[in-house]
């Protein structure tokens, strides 16, 4: 039975707890495209590096984005050339920077899934509330259902999904029902402890072949999710077609700022091209679960955390990075 976890944090936890070794050989865990950094196309990084080198602009970002390669360079590379880049834990820090220095424009690298999009909503909400106009966001926001649909449609090798726990906190577990019914597959929404993941895997095995969505994280996930957050997201963002590294454009799989908030956008539309650095790199197939990291010819040889050939090795939630640092084989 092939079970896919779509959330990078689940991939990391599975390795962390040593779960693969506890499972029967007949259960194969496959990492899916749930790492927002890994699925970001080079066009997006190039736009960020360009912005960071422009006078009067500072790019603000989460840590993982710093090492991802654009066509020719990463944010870390341009920092060494004088690019203005700052790393934060919370995007809300951008407000503090903007208030402290009105001569600069601060652009936040807004990547993420449904868990993180509400955070960007709050950033803009607060900016508007306090009249802060020197903030923008460059978005590469993705949504889960469309890409899961793509995997099922184009690969058809998955027998069950370990559904993302924190995405579901916002969206509600019901978003997986149409997928479960279309493909007659079980979905188990799970938390992030080792035991919670094992429970979810057990439930998926028991329910194989059934169209069933199970919420195994009821302390934070409900069927409908955080509806207030969903409303706020709708206020600022609309669905759009989005480019996924390794997959290409998937219709309706992203979010972009509504026209009336265009003043806050740093040029997010049309960032769709993805440059492949090494023709032997198979990030595309790893991201969609078509192959395991260990099946990529570059894995562990030319491609390591110190000499990354593709995004899957760059992000600490990337499948390849995870397999490498934990020496996973399964």
């Amino acid at each position, binding site marked *: 039975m092939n079970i896919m976890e779509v959330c990078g944090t689940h991939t990391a936890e599975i*390795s*962390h*707890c*040593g*779960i*693969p*070794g*506890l499972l029967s050989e007949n259960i194969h865990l496959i990492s899916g495209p749930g790492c927002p950094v890994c699925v970001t196309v080079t066009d997006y990084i190039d736009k960020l590096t360009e912005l960071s080198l422009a006078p009067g602009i500072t790019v603000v970002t989460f840590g993982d984005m710093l090492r991802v390669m654009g066509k020719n360079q990463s944010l870390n590379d341009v920092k060494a050339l004088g690019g203005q880049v700052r790393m934060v*834990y919370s995007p809300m820090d951008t407000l503090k920077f903007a208030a402290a220095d009105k001569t600069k424009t601060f652009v936040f690298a807004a990547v993420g899934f449904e868990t993180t999009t509400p955070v960007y909503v709050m950033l803009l909400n607060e900016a508007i509330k306090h009249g802060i106009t020197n903030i923008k966001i460059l978005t590469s926001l993705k949504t889960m259902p469309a890409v899961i649909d793509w995997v099922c449609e184009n690969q058809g090798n998955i027998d069950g999904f370990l559904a993302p726990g924190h995405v579901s906190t916002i969206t509600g577990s019901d978003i997986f029902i149409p997928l479960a019914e279309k493909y007659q597959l079980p979905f188990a929404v799970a938390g992030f402890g*080792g*035991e919670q993941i*094992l429970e979810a895997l057990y439930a998926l095995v028991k329910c194989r072949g059934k169209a069933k969505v199970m919420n195994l994280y009821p302390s934070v996930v409900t069927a409908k999710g955080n509806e207030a957050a969903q409303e706020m997201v709708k206020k600022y963002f609309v669905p759009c077609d989005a480019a996924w590294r390794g997959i290409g454009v998937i219709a309706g799989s992203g979010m972009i700022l509504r026209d009336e908030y265009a003043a806050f956008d740093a040029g997010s539309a049309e960032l769709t091209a993805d440059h492949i650095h090494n023709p032997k790199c198979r990030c595309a197939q790893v991201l969609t679960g078509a192959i395991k990291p260990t099946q990529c010819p570059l894995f562990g040889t030319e491609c*390591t*955390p*110190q000499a990354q050939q593709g995004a899957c090795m760059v992000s*600490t939630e990337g499948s390849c*990075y995870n397999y*490498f*640092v*934990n*020496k*996973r084989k399964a």
Partner: protein
Amino acid sequence: MKITMTHGSGGKATSDLIANIFAKHFQNPVLAKMEDSAVVPGAATLAITTDSFVVTPLFFNGGDIGKLAVCGTVNDLAVSGAVPKYLTCGFILEEGAETEDLEKIAVSMAETAEEAGVVIVAGDTKVVEGSGGIYINTSGVGFLADSCCVSAANCAEGDAVLLSGNLGDHHAAILSARMNIANTIQSDCAPLNDMTAALMKSGVRVKAMRDVTRGGLATVLNEFAAASQCCILLNEERIPVSEQVRGFCGILGLDPLYMGNEGKMVAVVAGEDAQKALNCMKNCKYGENAAVIGEVASGEAETVLLNTLIGGIRILTELYGEGLPRIC
């Protein structure tokens, strides 16, 4: 008063700085001679080490760059089985550094050196352009008994692995300051030479010792596994981490096994001596949370394995990447 390029010129300003800050606090007969070299009694076999300290902020919960500079070098000597004796310290000061800060650092170094029983016998000061940074290099010399044989290559199947206390405190203390997370986590910065001396005298067969600094426990044990061509097996539930540091790691997605410490050591001892070694560590000032965390097992060489809390096995590699910003 701010440091300027004149303080680094080698003239009066320099000698005043040395007299008023370094000589004043590092007082000892050797240094007082102010010769070009410190001439000191020695031993047949010496341990020598050097380390540089570039941490920011300079002052943090539980310590400062000066205390770090003394402990770091003392500990490298101590875990080699040596009795630390003499330290040198070189300062590189950026223009704009405050002499008040420098004096606080010197006082801290003097206090730590006294606790560790070492003497600072030589030093140097340079000033460069910049924005107020302070960097310290310390080199250290220790004496080794001829019979001493502690080495990363000595680990053998059946040996026990001990850790002297909680992981992650130093790293968390530094990061908390930088990321504005309020807590009471203190750096664990401390000299470990009393602990290593006690272990060496206790009759325990000590195979290897190392202090658990940058790269964390996982990196150090990988070094042992590689040098000894052995397999090390750890039990996650035995590894001590404070509740607060666990919470901190949870917020930022960090792993205590890869975090830096400045007052913790790992010791590999003969299996039968495990309890004796544990008692010895626990009786020392900085060993209250010491624990036996694993063993050298039969298995694939150069491998470190962790029995996880849910009963899985995880392979622990050395740290890849930078972990996080400079912490020592």
